[in-house]
């Protein structure tokens, strides 16, 4: 008979017994509902023309989705980066390592346990976002795409934090490093691309001024490819690309094409949109981090000479 991951099962028992789990999920859903209601109400009240504008629901949907992404990026490391260190402090890690469970099972169990709350929040918020389907802000298929994007981003953030929890024996260092990696992915990639672009663009602009003839700024294909890959690492860019693909109101593609890619479609040679590339990259990163975590957690990686009968 197939068994549930023992570590996840244990955490599930304690989490389901804990009233705070439900309170946190409930409070989050209520918060999203309240935000949506407030923004809808405000948009109607502040409008000089009486009546409801369906266009506003797209903006509200995008804003609430942004809040959810921020929550994932901020909350997942906070819950996950202490997982393995917590077992160390409780002195239960060795006890798990001498059992028949593989370190992969332990890491996956810990990852699932720590993502449980966030996954519950994401799933519980689907009906709230579903209301926007009713308003016409988003199609059901697009809503599913967004839910998938959030789940994959949460898994990537969780696997980074688990790895930090194994590498750094001190919990505080693990927390700091997890947040640093998330900062690197969400901000620093964009900042690096932005800075390089800025330098190139300014140089180009000055050169053109000297020539007196306007020549459009065109980046070479290799540069475009490199920048796109760098940006595809960034969950925030992936999210903006998803919103752009969904509603067209977030003009990430037009911003990038206008300034960075010279009116070319923001697509890699794979012909996939940025958000989908971001999903695949995050799945890949999660696998690498979980694999590395399992390897590092293994006690006595070289078991030494043992013989059995």
């Amino acid at each position, binding site marked *: *008979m197939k*068994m*549930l991951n*023992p570590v996840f*099962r*244990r955490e599930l*028992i*304690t989490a389901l*017994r804990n009233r705070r789990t439900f309170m946190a999920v409930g409070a989050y859903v209520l918060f999203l509902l309240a935000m949506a209601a407030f923004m809808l109400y405000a948009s109607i009240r502040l409008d000089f023309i009486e009546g409801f504008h369906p266009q506003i629901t797209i903006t509200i949907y995008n804003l609430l989705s942004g809040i959810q992404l921020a929550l994932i990026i901020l909350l997942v490391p906070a819950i996950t980066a202490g997982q393995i260190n917590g077992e160390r402090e*409780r*002195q*239960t890690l*060795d*006890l*798990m*390592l*001498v*059992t*028949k*469970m593989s370190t992969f099972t332990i890491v996956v169990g810990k990852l699932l346990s720590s993502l449980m709350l966030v996954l519950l929040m994401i799933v519980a918020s689907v009906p709230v976002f579903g209301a926007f389907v009713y308003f016409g802000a988003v199609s059901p298929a697009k809503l599913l795409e967004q839910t998938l994007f959030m789940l994959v981003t949460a898994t990537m953030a969780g696997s980074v934090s688990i790895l930090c929890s194994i590498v750094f024996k001190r919990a505080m260092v693990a927390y700091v490093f997890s947040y640093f990696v998330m900062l690197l992915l969400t901000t620093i990639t964009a900042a690096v691309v932005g800075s390089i672009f800025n330098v190139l663009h300014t140089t180009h602009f000055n050169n053109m001024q000297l020539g007196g003839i306007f020549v459009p700024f065109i980046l070479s294909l290799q540069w475009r490819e490199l920048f796109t890959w760098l940006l595809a690492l960034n969950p925030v860019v992936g999210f903006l690309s998803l919103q752009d693909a969904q509603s067209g109101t977030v003009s990430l593609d037009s911003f990038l094409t206008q300034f960075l890619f010279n009116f070319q479609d923001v697509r890699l040679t794979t012909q996939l949109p940025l958000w989908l590339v971001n999903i695949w990259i995050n799945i890949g990163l999660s696998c690498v981090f979980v694999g590395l975590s399992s390897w590092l957690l293994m*006690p*006595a*990686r*070289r*078991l*030494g*000479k*043992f*013989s*059995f*009968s």
Partner: protein
Amino acid sequence: MLELVNLVKKYGKVTALDGINLHIASESIFGFVGPNGAGKTTAMKIITGLLAATSGEVRVGGANQVQSRHALAEKIGYMPDFFGVYDDLKVSEYMDFYAGTYYIPYSGRRAVIDRLLDLVNLTDKRDEYVDLLSRGMKQRLCLARSLIHDPEILVLDEPASGLDPRSRVEMKAVLRQLRSLGKTIIVSSHILPELSEMCTDIGIISHGKMIATGTVDDILRNLHSARVIQIRPLDGVEKLTDFLRTKLEAGDITQSMGGVEFPFAGDDSALAALVKDIVNNDIGLVAVSEKQGSLEDVYMQLTNPEHAAETETISVS
């Protein structure tokens, strides 16, 4: 059966285990004795697969076969020198978790858990939170946990540390019961009288070297330079002393508690002959006994730094 063959563990320049050789027979209780930092826990962690030896071999069961962590986990149950409990779980849930870690089917778990809780006398606590258990109960719960997959070999690191006298007695009783069920038990402790009562064999480890192994009785007999004999006469301690002076070295004979005490280098037949001589000389005897040396004496003698410098394994069989 468990065998350590020339086991070495080095941490950088520090040698924690320096060529340990050990043979532990099946269904025995082996006591690991040694001062703090002697290498007991290191050896135990290597046996359980938590640490890799720098060199040497651990043989579980005797023959040379596969190398796998999974197979090792199946054969060995480990109880470290700390509790390692989840306070937010109930006793039965705690046991159920560890049953899961050994992939015991859901259907068979309840019976296994009930049997083990009964063994460690915690049946009435099965629905209580682990947090609410006393130290002794937590220790017994940990023992039950280490038995959840019915291992052949139990490795117990300081199982009686911090327990009150009643809990210690209970722990000893459980270990004896486990031995009778066919388990091979390796136990480390600082409490020597307890080990001498409980263990079939002991090994004394110091500075990473095994300096003596054997049964408790043999170690006591062989490592004391001579046996000390106590004789209590019916009357006339002086007469007995005078007689013994003709037979033994005078300086060694001391009078105490209405009798005499002296070291005796001969074997049992020599002692019987001496007793016969005394009786033939009209000295009435009430008691002849051999003074019990303590394991502590031997331990102190073997683990002192002067001795450590010249250690070589004393194997007593």
